[in-house]
């Protein structure tokens, strides 16, 4: 009986994993600019989710929970890397697959971690501001603020005009 319960939970989790994993990896990659590390961090986040699956699976949006965990892990990794690069005077490497708008990628790489996360969720995952706020664990006002500041910074770096569309 116990094994059947565990199997049912793992099957349910596996279905969820197949639906969500790739998009969480992509969002985390846009924050870290490193697909390999993004994949590792996303796996860690899903392990955390599976150990709490019984509770989290009852939430309205478990996909928001795992994204929040993955993004916080990625942001923490990024901050540590940035500190190490400041100390070692390294240039941030960019390991993105496929054809990229390199100027855009470099501009996003210059955003602080929380703004990168907001930009990835709003533009890549196409989430409304209220969901961006929920995943980042902040108020809607704060999420709008992140996006507004990100737009202004990207516009400056790319030589474009920023228009608020939130």
């Amino acid at each position: 009986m116990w094994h059947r319960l565990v199997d049912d939970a793992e099957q349910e989790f596996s279905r969820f994993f197949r639906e969500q994993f790739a998009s969480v990896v992509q969002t985390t990659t846009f924050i870290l600019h490193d697909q390999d590390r993004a994949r590792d961090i996303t796996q860690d986040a899903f392990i955390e989710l599976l150990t709490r699956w019984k509770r989290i699976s009852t939430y309205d949006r478990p996909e928001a929970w795992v994204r929040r965990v993955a993004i916080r892990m990625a942001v923490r990794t990024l901050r540590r890397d940035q500190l190490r690069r400041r100390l070692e005077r390294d240039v941030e490497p960019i390991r993105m697959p496929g054809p990229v708008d390199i100027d855009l990628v470099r501009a996003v790489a210059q955003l602080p971690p929380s703004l990168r996360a907001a930009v990835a969720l709003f533009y890549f995952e196409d989430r409304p501001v209220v969901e961006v706020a929920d995943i980042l664990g902040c108020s809607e006002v704060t999420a709008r603020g992140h996006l507004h500041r990100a737009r202004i910074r990207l516009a400056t770096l790319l030589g474009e005009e920023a228009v608020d569309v939130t």
Partner: protein
Amino acid sequence: MSLDQRVRDGFARSSFPMDSDEIEDLLGGVLAGARRRRRNRRAVQITLAALLVVVAAFLGPKALEALESVGETRPAVPGEPHVESRGPRVAGQVTGALVAGSRLTIRVDATMPSVGFPAPGGWQAFHLVEVAIVSGNRDLDHLRFDIEDKKLTIGGQSTVIVGTGAVATSTHLRVSGAEVVVTTGGANLSFEVRAQVVETIPQDVQFELSVVDDFGASDEVTRRLAEPESGGIT
């Protein structure tokens, strides 16, 4: 092309498909990782149980009682935190008065023990401190402190950055950012806010003090307004 369109197109072009075989491999890794963690936890529990047997046989009832209390949850008593085997723990107290015009001090003390892989624990693993002010099963007011952004939101709308002179006001409270003190160190975080009561709070009020960590785990205790200490010259 507008900036927004360029950003959307840029992200779309930079995205990459993951093939199903790769996803299945990674799923296998996640399932194995979680099973390993469950096995490790069971091994710890079995070891602890065996230790209890040894202690009962050789060291007597008093030592057995001490060991049994490890990892159990004790009921909260004023000023004492929940004891849980992992995850955040919270304690706190509320002092002052509930009448309009008076001061109310809310203190939340949180501890985040090390939980090993993947997070090292410590106070940096905290995400939110929350206080719900409840009377007769109704939420009267709410405070939420975002540890990373250092922002205190009261009443769900009014926000101040801690350490600034800005003021936030809700139905029952007024708070200045300068009157919020956050102390951190090691595994501990202490959050204290001195608020001015702008509308009298009912006497049956309870304060639900909670902390949430980066992984969604939380702990909560409920407090009533502490009785003022007796004192004076006798």
